[in-house]
């Protein structure tokens, strides 16, 4: 071959490392060498450290706070209490859910670990000493940690600040500890379907309280520069632009004088969406002292106070004909929101997108009612690696399907296939108001069943039950099925906002004269690899190799406004903005190419990395040549430069789906389990980087494994957190974590510019039902219909015991 042979189209495409390429990550060079820059790595001259005095009680009146001994300690600069914040109007702050939350205890505390005073000192050791020296006198009050007891007529009043208020942010409050009742669907229709049905399966399904627990806790560094009036705030923020707006509204500092920077973030999983008292106190402390103030949670603070997830008591009823056609679904949820309603949901959705709970099934009529309740637990209610309350919804429907199959005496895989929304029904309007954009559930399901030899597994299971009954084995076999449908990519501005900010996202691209580029987005990676994958989208769209594109996020002074990264919205929303901005670049590039080639724009066609004259491919201008011309040539009627920005308001959500199957061995005598096989098929539409997708699936499945098999935030009746350290709060190690097999189908989203749907949260949403269903399925032959998660060793043993399997 001659060296002068021009590269083929395929070679040029491959050189871009664009869509579909398992491109190695550009982030990894710094992370593998210990050169990441996380918030605790930020070190400023004269920086102080903040730490909290926290409540040891679940519910108590604060009689007095005496900080004199703390203030007398050398190195202690200040101790802030609610009294200090009150003149600034900052002793309370608004939550994302339309409620308000104490920044520092104002007269009483409502959960263990609540922030009571903020100590500011020269270093973290002195701060910790000072925390011990602050004397707080409490008078303990009756504690309520059970949401059903909280709604009893004589339950203690938790939120005295709301006494007499019968109207909340989401409608009527019918009890002093009631937050809202939120309803969707056709209540009467669902009741009618249930009363007329051949078969009704009814069950209370509890999705327990847990916590996202990223390896890096939450923290920030606030630095008020009094000379130029600018506040800079570094922090673990999944939504830096929203933090800037909130900080401006709360502090009164003009928004242009606030710069928020999310540096590298050590995992988020929803934990870092909310605004926490630590941020507010750090800002105030920096303003008061004129010095930078760092606050970083320790692990106990993190697990006890910032952002729990789930805690949904779901009462489901599902109706069907005797041959297994589902005719209706009705769900009532008692949602434990803790002491303040600080759920991180789009404003109009106090129960998030829980009404995706009809799942993958064509259910003609459905109703959902969610009662939000205050208890003496930490606030939060974040979407832990899921879109807003979607994992709760998927767990509910995937349990109900299993219970219905049991009642019908029908195979659960067959029952699913019988009720799937069919391919030709898309776009599909669900009974609870969603428009599913696309899907092909039967193809995915059949592929999954075949991959694991489903019939073979069922035969083996039947033999195992016989052997167990004969006393030949003590091990049971569970086959956990799940077909989930997600709803991600929030969302259309017409109905999705956070504190009034529409949930669009953004991308700004600058092409440099030599044909490389920088792009900035309104999102922020917490490990998802945006710097790698967004460059791939841009490479395919602009013809500039991904290796020549820098991606920047997280600095509000430079990045365009966006709503951040959570709810799998980065690819569906910011990824779309990237494609749309790139298309603006291409449109201008086409005009420049037409000028350079002296042809009409319409005579050109895009060819991988260049515009070529139609019918004369040897006449072309590459994007590199066009970029140079954009800055160098005086082109009539075209302004110099090559830049574009796009703010993308998605027309709809995206609906990734998947089929997961878990094969689990359970020892009836010890309660131990072993995952023999886990097969995960994901359909996330167009696949940007298969390597990154696989990594996301492995990670999400491991979090699902943790949640379903042991991880929980548990309280005792006194309101003490029983799982406040990693000794008690289950994070699987490499030793327990199972091996996963991943697979895919590809059904592009019809409304997304490149057809991508998002994948980061699917494995958590689909994984939890698959693991939990495997446990239930192992005991199905012995009559088990429901046992609550997490299925730790003791609970599994107890299940076997209660079923009489221990002889």
């Amino acid at each position: 071959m001659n060296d002068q042979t021009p590269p083929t189209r395929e070679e040029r495409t491959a050189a871009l490392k664009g869509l579909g390429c398992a491109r190695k990550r550009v982030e990894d060079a710094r992370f593998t060498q210990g050169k990441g820059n996380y918030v605790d790595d930020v070190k400023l001259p004269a920086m102080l450290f903040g730490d909290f005095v926290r409540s040891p009680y679940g519910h108590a009146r604060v009689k007095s706070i005496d900080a004199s001994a703390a203030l007398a300690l050398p190195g202690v600069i200040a101790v802030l209490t609610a009294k200090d914040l009150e003149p600034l109007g900052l002793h309370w702050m608004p939550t994302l859910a339309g409620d308000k939350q104490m920044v520092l205890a104002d007269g009483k505390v409502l959960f263990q670990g609540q922030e009571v005073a903020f100590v500011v000192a020269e270093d973290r050791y002195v701060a910790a000493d000072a925390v011990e020296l602050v004397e707080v006198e409490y008078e303990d009050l009756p504690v309520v940690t059970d949401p059903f007891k909280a709604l009893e007529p004589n339950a203690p009043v938790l939120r005295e600040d709301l006494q007499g208020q019968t109207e909340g942010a989401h409608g009527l409050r019918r009890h002093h500890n009631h937050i809202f009742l939120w309803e969707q669907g056709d209540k009467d229709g669902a009741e009618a379907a249930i009363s007329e049905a051949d078969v009704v399966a009814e069950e209370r399904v509890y999705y327990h309280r847990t916590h996202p627990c990223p390896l890096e806790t939450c923290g920030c560094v606030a630095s008020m520069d009094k000379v130029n009036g600018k506040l800079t705030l570094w922090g673990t923020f999944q939504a830096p632009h929203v933090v800037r707006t909130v900080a401006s509204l709360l502090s009164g500092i003009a928004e242009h004088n606030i710069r928020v920077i999310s540096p590298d973030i050590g995992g988020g999983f929803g934990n870092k969406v909310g605004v926490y008292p630590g941020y507010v106190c750090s800002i105030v402390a920096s303003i008061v002292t004129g010095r930078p103030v760092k606050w970083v949670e320790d692990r106990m603070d993190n697990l006890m106070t910032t952002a729990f997830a789930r805690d949904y008591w779901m009462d489901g009823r599902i109706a069907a004909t005797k041959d297994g056609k589902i005719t209706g679904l009705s769900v009532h949820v008692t949602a434990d929101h803790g002491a303040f309603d600080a759920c991180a949901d789009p404003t109009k959705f106090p129960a998030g997108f829980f009404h995706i709970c009809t799942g993958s099934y064509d259910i003609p009529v459905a109703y959902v009612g969610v009662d939000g309740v205050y208890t003496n637990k930490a606030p939060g209610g974040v979407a832990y690696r899921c879109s807003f309350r979607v994992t709760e919804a998927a767990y509910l429907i995937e349990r109900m399907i299993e219970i219905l199959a049991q009642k019908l005496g029908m195979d659960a895989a067959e029952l699913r296939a019988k009720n799937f929304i069919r391919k030709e029904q898309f776009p599909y309007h669900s009974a609870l108001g969603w428009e599913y954009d696309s899907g092909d559930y039967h193809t995915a399901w059949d592929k999954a069943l075949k991959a694991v030899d489903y019939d073979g597994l069922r035969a083996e299971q039947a033999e195992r039950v016989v052997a167990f009954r004969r006393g030949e084995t003590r091990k049971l076999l569970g086959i956990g099925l799940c077909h989930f449908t997600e709803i991600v990519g929030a969302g259309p501005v017409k109905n999705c906002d956070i504190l009034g900010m529409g949930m669009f996202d953004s991308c700004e691209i600058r092409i440099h004269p030599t044909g490389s580029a920088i792009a900035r987005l309104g999102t922020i990676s917490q490990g998802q690899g945006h710097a790698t994958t967004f460059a791939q989208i841009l490479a395919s769209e602009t013809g500039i190799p991904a290796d020549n594109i820098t991606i920047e996020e997280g600095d509000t002074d430079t990045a365009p406004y966006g709503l951040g990264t959570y709810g799998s919205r980065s690819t569906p929303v910011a990824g779309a903005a990237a494609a749309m901005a790139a298309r603006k670049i291409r449109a201008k590039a086409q005009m420049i190419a037409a000028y350079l080639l002296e042809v009409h724009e319409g005579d050109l066609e895009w060819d991988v990395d260049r515009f070529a004259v139609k019918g004369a491919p040897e006449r072309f201008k590459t994007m590199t040549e066009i970029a140079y011309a954009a800055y160098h040539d005086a082109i009539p009627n075209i302004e110099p430069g090559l830049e574009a920005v796009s703010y993308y308001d998605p027309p709809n959500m995206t609906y990734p789906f998947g089929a997961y199957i878990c094969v689990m061995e359970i020892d009836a005598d010890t309660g131990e389990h072993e995952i023999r096989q886990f097969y995960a098929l994901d359909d996330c539409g167009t696949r940007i980087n298969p390597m990154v997708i696989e990594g996301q699936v492995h990670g999400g499945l491991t979090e699902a494994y943790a949640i379903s098999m042991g991880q929980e935030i548990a309280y005792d009746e006194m309101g003490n957190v029983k799982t406040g350290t990693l000794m008690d709060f289950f994070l699987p190690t490499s030793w327990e974590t199972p091996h996963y097999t991943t697979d895919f189908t590809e059904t592009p989203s019809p409304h997304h510019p490149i057809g991508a749907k998002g994948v980061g949260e699917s494995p958590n949403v689909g994984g939890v039902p698959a693991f939990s269903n495997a446990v239930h399925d192992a005991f199905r032959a012995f009559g088990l219909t429901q046992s609550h998660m997490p299925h730790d060793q003791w609970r599994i043993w107890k299940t076997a015991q209660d079923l009489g399997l221990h002889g």
Partner: protein
Amino acid sequence: MADKIHLKMTVNGQPVETLAEPRELLIHVLRERLDITGPHIGCETTHCGACTVDLDGKSVKSCTVFAAQADGAEITTVEGIGSPDKLHVLQEMFREHHGLQCGFCTPGMITRAWRLLQENPTPSEEEIRFGMAGNLCRCTGYQNIVKAIMAAATEMNAAKEAAE
């Protein structure tokens, strides 16, 4: 507050000295006094391993070691395992096999794996999973971390054989 003590140690091949309080933890001295920020703080209770460093030939969680205990010791952190010009094969393999996502556990993981492969140059998958169980990762599910360590072991052994 007790008087500060004078500590001398070798960190990543360089002799260093610093003053620290007797109660200061090694992780804080490394990060805040010596500006070695590769090791991270994830739990402060020895569970997560983000703070793993190599101390006199052993993997230790530097969040539960007093700096005073490391006086005179030889310490290696992730910064000392490779250099930008010449990455260690473990660093290359973690990238090659997508053994990291947010990167927060990665310095501890690589530092631990570096010692593990010296303790056992030909580990089985099971031995890797057992030997790495003191280091938690919330992003990857470990599968690719195990793959990366396996691949690094293979490469290191091939290089050693070629050299012999």
